[in-house]
């Protein structure tokens, strides 16, 4: 088995250290690393040395919100293509959303998705289980069976649809306590968003596109934090997008409610102004909001009100985007651009005190904690799993949709120049990405 000696990486953007990766763990750090590598070499072990003197080392990124589309929509993405894109984006773990076909609402489907991930070998796949049978919002799916399955599901979500029935939501919040699960809510009041195509405001009024009002998100967020308080459960808010939602979550946390929240990279950087050209690449759910909302979610991420960044990577084939706005599918890819967008919006932004340790916290440590993924989001210390990513903070790159590793090209960042580049990703001690290129596994699992 190949081992890796990483030279002089800046750990979490701080002090430089050597790291030696062997047997799936961080085997040695600092001065010990080179010695360990020398010893290994003497024993005939293959050691690949990586000069990381201009690079930053972070724990492997963990995405709590990924649409891998398999089973059902393999034309848009597969577990293999999606996790390969994840690796290129610096991720060592993704949570695969349940809105597949068939829906991931049984132990059988979540185990299938989990196994596809293990076989593909690009990143750890943690299936998300549906809250309700068929995402229909009528009756609870067998949450316990999914939790007890080989996939060990801990995150449950009807994402794409809101669990809008308050009684059903209450039951779900209560029920998952038995196995330390969490319900991740897609907060969208359905009646207030019928036919909605974009954020309701000044731009939608001009464009004549049916509006998706901020209150439709905020009303559900407010209800759910109160429900979580009432039954003593934790609750997670998916892709929080409005200033009002930030205020509600801030209030809830101050009150001691066990709520966590995520923001997507695109909601950190794009506004509803982008829709003016009617380009469906900017059609997403929840919709792009106003500049004031962008400022609020950035501030919320910086002060910890918003716990994590999650991609909501939502691949779609060309035919679902190359059409009129109303007919287009909602969603954009994000796995390969997420880190760069967070750097552009937060790290390189002098308005916020947000450094690389905050990147590690919001894109690895905390999402792993919310998803109860024991082996991810760990500190870069001796004996910890060798899940890490090396980032060149000074590189820039231009987004070419066709060159991205996801099977779909629906990125909103086409032709944009973005900062920071993933140079290498290691998962369980194996390099899934080297020199910015994905490296397929050669040792096929028996």
């Amino acid at each position: 088995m190949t081992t890796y000696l990483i030279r002089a990486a800046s750990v979490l953007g701080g002090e430089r250290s050597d790291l030696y990766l062997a047997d799936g763990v961080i085997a040695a750090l600092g001065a010990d690393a080179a010695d360990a590598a020398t010893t290994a070499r003497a024993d005939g072990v293959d050691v690949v040395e990586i000069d990381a003197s201009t690079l930053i080392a972070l724990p492997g990124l963990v995405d709590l919100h990924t649409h891998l589309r398999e089973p059902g929509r393999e034309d848009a993405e597969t577990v293999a293509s999606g996790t390969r894109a994840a690796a290129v984006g610096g991720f060592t773990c993704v949570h695969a959303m349940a809105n597949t076909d068939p829906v991931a609402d049984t132990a059988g489907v979540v185990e299938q998705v989990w196994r596809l991930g293990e076989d593909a070998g690009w990143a750890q796949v943690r299936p998300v289980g549906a809250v309700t049978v068929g995402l229909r919002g009528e009756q609870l799916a067998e949450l316990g069976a999914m939790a007890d399955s080989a996939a060990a599901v801990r995150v449950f979500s009807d994402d794409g649809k809101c669990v809008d029935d308050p009684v059903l939501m209450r039951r779900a919040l209560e029920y998952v306590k038995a196995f330390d699960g969490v319900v991740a809510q897609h907060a969208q009041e359905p009646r207030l968003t019928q036919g909605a195509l974009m954020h309701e405001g000044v731009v939608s009024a001009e464009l004549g596109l049916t509006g998706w009002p901020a209150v439709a998100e905020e009303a559900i967020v407010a209800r759910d934090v109160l429900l979580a308080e009432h039954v003593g459960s934790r609750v997670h808010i998916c892709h929080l997008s409005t200033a009002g939602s930030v205020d509600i979550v801030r209030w809830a946390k101050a009150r001691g409610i066990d709520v966590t929240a995520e923001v997507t990279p695109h909601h950190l950087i794009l506004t509803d102004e982008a829709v003016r050209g009617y380009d469906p690449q900017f059609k997403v759910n929840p919709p792009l909001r106003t500049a004031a909302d962008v400022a609020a979610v950035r501030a919320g991420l910086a002060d910890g009100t918003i716990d994590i960044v999650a991609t909501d990577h939502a691949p779609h084939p060309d035919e679902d985007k190359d059409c009129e706005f109303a007919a287009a599918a909602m969603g954009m890819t994000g796995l390969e651009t997420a880190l760069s967008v967070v750097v552009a919006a937060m790290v390189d932004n002098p308005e916020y005190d947000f450094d690389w340790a905050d990147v590690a916290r919001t894109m690895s440590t905390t999402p792993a904690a919310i998803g109860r993924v024991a082996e991810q989001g760990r500190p870069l210390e001796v004996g910890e799993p060798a899940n890490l990513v090396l980032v060149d903070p000074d590189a820039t790159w231009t987004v070419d949709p066709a060159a991205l590793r996801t099977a779909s090209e629906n990125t909103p960042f086409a032709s944009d120049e973005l900062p920071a580049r993933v140079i290498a990703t290691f998962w369980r001690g194996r390099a899934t990405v080297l020199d910015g290129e994905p490296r397929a596994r050669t040792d096929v699992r028996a």
Partner: protein
Amino acid sequence: MRHLLSAADLSRAEAIEILDTTATMAATQSREIKKLPALRGLTVVNLFFEDSTRTRISFEAAAKRLSADVINFSAKGSSVSKGESLKDTALTLAAMGADAVVIRHQASGAPHRLATSGWVRTPVVNAGDGMHQHPTQALLDAFTMRRHLAGGGEAGPDGIGRDLAGAKVVIVGDVLHSRVARSNVDLLHTLGADVTLVAPPTLLPVGVHTWPCAVSYDLNATIADVRPDAIMMLRVQRERMSSAGGGFFPSPMEYSRRYGLDGTRLAALPEHCVVMHPGPMNRGLEISAKAADSPRSTIVEQVANGVAVRMAVLYLLLAGGTETEGSR
């Protein structure tokens, strides 16, 4: 002008050029031989994804009177209903050699997509898209207003060269769903008119406060305070009152009482105020028969001006301007 997608895209000079060209076109329409040779050999495609016989006929008449060949493509009974996309339809028409595409579509922004996606290279004229824009309607309304409010004297009966500075225009009705209202607010503002929108709050979009116009919920007060030079009644769909249709107002009767142009309100208007409606009308809902048929109603005249405006737009896009090279 490469395309006509939105009234908001027109500068004051461009708008006046179109209105003045419309006057020229209108003059030819009172002649015995109405047909002009301007667009001979060119093909205009009317691409209608939404039923509108009135608008389609108006564009068809305009193109034919300029001697263009016209292909009518309507979604009903076409391959569109079998799932063929706007893109494929556009590619097909481009391959057939269209020189201009007039498009009506229920999706806001569809003409914009057609013009900017590279699917066709010809000029695109928006004949109404969703709740977004209907620029030729705004132009024909402005032309009609200019005739009545700025005509006369040395500018001639059509008010050649003039804008609508200071004209007070009140637009009443379902602004939320109306591309006519949006187009008119944009164009009338560009031409210097003062616009007041009147509607129940449920039929105004969130964000309307940023539009270049005043907004009122009270028609009686607006008629008394604004003393309008023109009042435009928008069509209101009866379905909008049902809960399935959105429940925007309690009943047609209540709408009519509060926002309809009845005999009393007609009498309260200044004597010179013209009464406009883009059609088709719901007599007895947003406008009484008395108002629609009164001598101050320009509703029939608007239809005639529609043909002249569309002649002017097609002429300027295909034969007139200096920026349309390559369109032939």
